[in-house]
C-alpha cells in the first residue's frame, strides 16, 4: 500500500480527506436494516474486496440480531407494556445493547484494517442508518490532489 498509517491518531493528524463513499441500504428483504455488499469502485485500489464484504456482512448480522422478532423481543415488549414502558428508564433495550457492540466492532475494524489503508468507517447510526460512510484519506505529504483517490499510485514519496 502506498499510504501507511500506524493508527487512527496518525490518520487524523497527518492525512487529508480525499473522498467519501456511501454504501447504501439493501431493501430487498423489507425495511429491516441491511446494507449492500456491492464493492464500491473507488475502494478497488485501497482494500481487498473480501475484507470489505466481511465487514458489511458482519454489520448486517448484527442488525439482523437487533431486529429479530422472536421470543425475546415479545417478552421485552409485553413486559414493557405491562409497566407502561417505564421500565425503559432503567433498562437498556436489546437494540441499544447491539448498537454498542456494533460501535465497538467498527472501532476495532477501523483500528486494525481500515486506518492502515487510509480509510475510515463512520457508524451508520450517525448518518440516520441510511448509509455506511467510508472516508478515503490521502497522505498530506503526497502530491496534493484531493479530488480522487486514484492518485494513490503517485504518492510514493513521503
Amino acid at each position, binding site marked *: 500500500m502506498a499510504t501507511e498509517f500506524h493508527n487512527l491518531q496518525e490518520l*487524523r*493528524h497527518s492525512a*487529508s*480527506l480525499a*473522498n*467519501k*463513499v*456511501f454504501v447504501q*441500504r439493501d*431493501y*430487498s*428483504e*423489507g*425495511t429491516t436494516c441491511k446494507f449492500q455488499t456491492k464493492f464500491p469502485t473507488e475502494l478497488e485500489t485501497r482494500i481487498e474486496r473480501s475484507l470489505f464484504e466481511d465487514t458489511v456482512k458482519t454489520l448486517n448480522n448484527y442488525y439482523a440480531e*437487533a*431486529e*429479530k*422478532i422472536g421470543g425475546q*423481543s*415479545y417478552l*421485552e*415488549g*409485553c413486559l*414493557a*407494556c405491562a409497566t*407502561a*414502558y*417505564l421500565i*425503559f428508564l432503567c433498562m437498556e*433495550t*436489546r*437494540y*441499544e445493547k447491539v*448498537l454498542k457492540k456494533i460501535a465497538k466492532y467498527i472501532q476495532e475494524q477501523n483500528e486494525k484494517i481500515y486506518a492502515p489503508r487510509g480509510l*475510515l468507517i463512520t457508524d451508520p*447510526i*450517525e*448518518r*440516520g*442508518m*441510511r*448509509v455506511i*460512510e467510508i*472516508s478515503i484519506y490521502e497522505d498530506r505529504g503526497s502530491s496534493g490532489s*484531493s*479530488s480522487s483517490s486514484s492518485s494513490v499510485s503517485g504518492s510514493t514519496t513521503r
Partner: protein
Amino acid sequence: MITRKVRKWEKLPGKNTFCCDGRVMMARQKGVFYLTLFLIIGTCSLFFAFECPYLAVHLSPAIPVFAAVLFLFVMAMLLRTSFSDPGVLPRALPDEATFIEMEIEAANGNVPPGQRAPPRIRNVQINSQIVKLKYCYTCKIFRPPRASHCSICDNCVDRFDHHCPWVGNCVGKRNYRYFYMFTLSLSLLTIYIFTFNIVHVAMRSVVSGFLNTLKDTPGTYPFLCLIFLQKDTPLLVCFFTLWSVVGLTGFHTYLISLNQTTNEDIKGSWSGKNRIQNPYSHKNIIKNCCEVLCGPTYPSVLDRRGLMQEDLVALAALPSTNSDTTPQTTKTTAPLIPNEHTPDEAKSIADSAAEKSSSPKEEQPPSAKLPPLASPETDAETSIAKDKPH
C-alpha cells in the same frame, strides 16, 4: 475563533420544539395537545371527585383503584407518544447530498437544456415487488420505503403513519405502538367512566329519585346534558361521543392486522387491482400484530443531546455558500428553511473527526455545482394527506 458548545437539538432543522434540553420532542403547534390533556384530566377529576366516593362505599373500592391505574396508563402512553421522537430521519449532510446528486446525474444522463429533468425515483425490489423510492428535496435523501415527509414538522419520518394534532406530534415507527396503546386504553377508560356514571345515577335514583340525584351529583352534569339532548336514546348519545375514540382504535387495529400505515391507506398504495400487494405484510394477522406491537424498540437516529461546536464569529457573517436555491417541495407552505446551519454542521463533524485542517476542503464540493433542480414533487395527493388532521 470563538466557539461554544451547544447541544445538537438547538441546531436541528425542521419545525419541532424541544424541551428538557433535548429530551422531549414535539411539533410546534401544541394547542390541541393541551386540550386533550384538559379533557382527559378534567373528566377523570370529575369522576374521582363526585362518583368514586359513592361507588367505593356502595359497590367496591376496587372500582376507583382500577380507574386510577387505567388513568395513569393513559397518561403515560399519551406523554410517551407526544414526547418521543417518531422516527425522524436526519437530513443528508452536504457530502452525502452531493454523492446522491452525482448518482442521479449519472443515471439520468444528459438532459438537453430547456427540458425538464425526469422525476427522481429509485426502484427497489422488496419481497419480489417493485417499490418506488421518492427523492425528498428538503432532506436531500431518497426516502426509505414507508417513510414520508411531514409538512407540519418538516421532517422525513420513518414508517410515517400520520401527524396527530391531538398528541402534538407525528406518529411514526418509534411511537406507533404507544399511540395505539393510548387510543386503546383511552377507549377502555371512557367506556369504564361512562358505565359507572350510569350505574351511579341508576343506583342513586333507586334510593332517592332521579331529580334529587341530579341535584346531589354535580359531577354528572356534563354527561347528563348530553343524554338529555336526546330524550329517548341516551345510549345513542354515549355511542356517538365514544365513537371517535373507539372508532379510531378499531381503525388502527385493522391497520395493524394488515401491517399498513394510515398514510398508505389514505393513498391507496396497496389496494386496487393494478396496484401491487403490500410487500411488508406477513399475510398472517397474528404475525402482523406481533411485529408492530411487540417488535424491537428502535433507537432514535436523531442525535439531540450530542454536543457540537458552534462558531460564534462565523455565524454572524454567514453567506449561503451551498447551492440550496432549490425551490422546496410542494409539501411545505412555510418559507425555505434556512440552511445556514449546514456549513456549521459539516464543520463540526469535521472537527469531531479531528480533521480540523481539512474543513476548508470539505466545504468545497468535490465536483462542479449542479444547477438547482426545477422539478419539485408532483405528488399532490401526498401533500393533501399530510395536511389532513387526524
